């Protein structure tokens, strides 16, 4: 395929092309940054609670069992839409209590069922975590996931 191509020509194509595509990637990333801040996420809604909730999420490494927006481990349910699954958009108080009770009641210790550990999370942190889930569920994700099962 490359009979007429010399090594130095191939090298120049490599460096030139790489810079070209890198520039496009950076430009699109900059545009996407603006899109996320203006269109797809509720920046004003990132309250201290949401921020703290994200920190709680990270401290307990939830991502290594669950997925969030489809990324993470595949051992436990998707949580990007857990707010919707608990009916949070219709009845926020019931959803909040439901999620908090669920976390508090772990582990189920049901034989043969995947176990979520017991985490030391206080009341205020639990609320923050729910704030975070609620906020994440408002991200405009091109309508992913396909249904409430996540």
């Amino acid at each position: 395929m490359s009979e007429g191509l010399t090594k130095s020509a191939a090298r120049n194509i490599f460096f030139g092309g790489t810079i070209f595509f890198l520039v496009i990637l950076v430009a699109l990333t900059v545009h996407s940054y603006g899109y996320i801040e203006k269109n797809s996420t509720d920046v004003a809604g990132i309250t201290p609670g949401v921020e703290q909730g994200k920190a709680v999420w990270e401290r307990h490494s939830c991502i290594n069992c669950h997925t969030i927006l489809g990324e993470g481990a595949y051992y436990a349910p998707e949580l990007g839409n857990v707010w919707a699954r608990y009916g949070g958009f219709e009845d926020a108080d019931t959803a909040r209590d439901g999620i908090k009770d669920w976390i508090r009641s772990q582990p189920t210790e049901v034989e043969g069922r995947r176990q979520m550990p017991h985490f030391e999370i206080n009341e205020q942190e639990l609320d923050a975590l729910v704030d975070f889930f609620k906020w994440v569920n408002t991200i405009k994700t091109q309508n992913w996931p396909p249904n409430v099962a996540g």
Partner: protein
Amino acid sequence: MKYETQKLAYPYFLAAMGLFVAQVLGGLLAGTVYIFPNLLAEAVPFNVIRMIHTNALIVWLLFGFFGAAYYLVPEETETEIHSPLIAKLQFWLFLFGAAAAVLGYLFGIHEGREFLEQPLWIKVAIVVVALMFLFNISMTLLKGRKTAVSLILVMGLWGLALFFLFAFYNPSNLALDKMFWWYVVHLWVEGVWELIMAAILAFLLIKMTGIDREIVEKWLYVIVSMTLFTGLLGMGHHYFWIGTPGYWQWIGSIFSTLEVLPFFAIVVFAFMVVRKGGRDHPNQAAMLWTLGCAVLAFFGAGVWGFMHTLAPINYLTHGTQVTAAHGHLAFFGAYVMVNLAIITYAMPHLRGMQPYNQVLNMWSFWIMSSGMVFMTLTLTAAGILQTHLQRVMGISFMEVADEIGFFFILRGLSGVVVVIGVLLFVYATLSTDKAQVRVGGMKPQAAE
């Protein structure tokens, strides 16, 4: 072995193999928990096991890359490594950081973003280690002959360090967090790591087939061009559903489909070179791993990646076991096998022996590879079922998990096979066979 400082690779390869064993044992344990979910549920929960499994993988692959660089850069540049002392310090610092990270995970000390769980001070240590390494290798390259192989390798390693810096940026907006998280993860495994892999394979093919370097290096540039021209914008296939604009569905689908091309080119080129080269290199095991790497990287990264990369398909499969299937065979085919290839090639030289236990090593190749292929098939079956039940029919995650449990039993069994293969590889690489003749430590060898 022509250069004294190539010996610096030896401890790196040892550490790589040690962590490789830890990684697959962690994997085996995680796979067992899938079958018996109550096992260790409180003592060592699944998320901790998985952190160890993935982090040990990343770290041992890095140990392998560092070792590969210390082994091949002197030969390529025809120059001794700039500072053996830095190489040794770098080794111990990295080993200490890796051990501290894993121990910390067991005690719940970690950050919380996937693959970037290392505590901040260990992330800083990783950067320090990378800078020491890059300084050392770059100084060597500047002094010596600049071949395409060494240039691409060093470029890949610089990229690796550079893109890791995004690990320090963790905005509170999850969509932004994810967008830049991929700057580490995607640009590593679908970008600069492929440069490292291609350079190592090129080195192995030059050494083992005796083919004209000019031809290999021209192809190397063509292949890494294809890699980055498709892979940089192939980033788009991670930007489908995380709050990023809709145009990524077009860009990601098209460019990530084209990411298959460089892997296909590597297969075609590797077999062509071996056929034309005609030299019967005594280290047949290294040749087997080299060609095996080309083939399974094509299937794991290429075919299994393509399978779920088109946006309308990914809409359904995103975040299911289909991703796990692809992830396992892609990492094994591309990065595990390239490391095992260079280790298999270099170890006899480093240990001052004739190419050692070939038969056992080749058995480990077939056992490990068939275990991984079978594992991938079981996860693929689980993933397709999960996609249908959960994404099409809307059945809840936990109910679906019960439905597809049979495949996780099969996956667990394939994991046992893989572990046997890995242990056999380590034994074959480090053992001393009766038939082997010890050929004085550091003497330059005629047969190369």
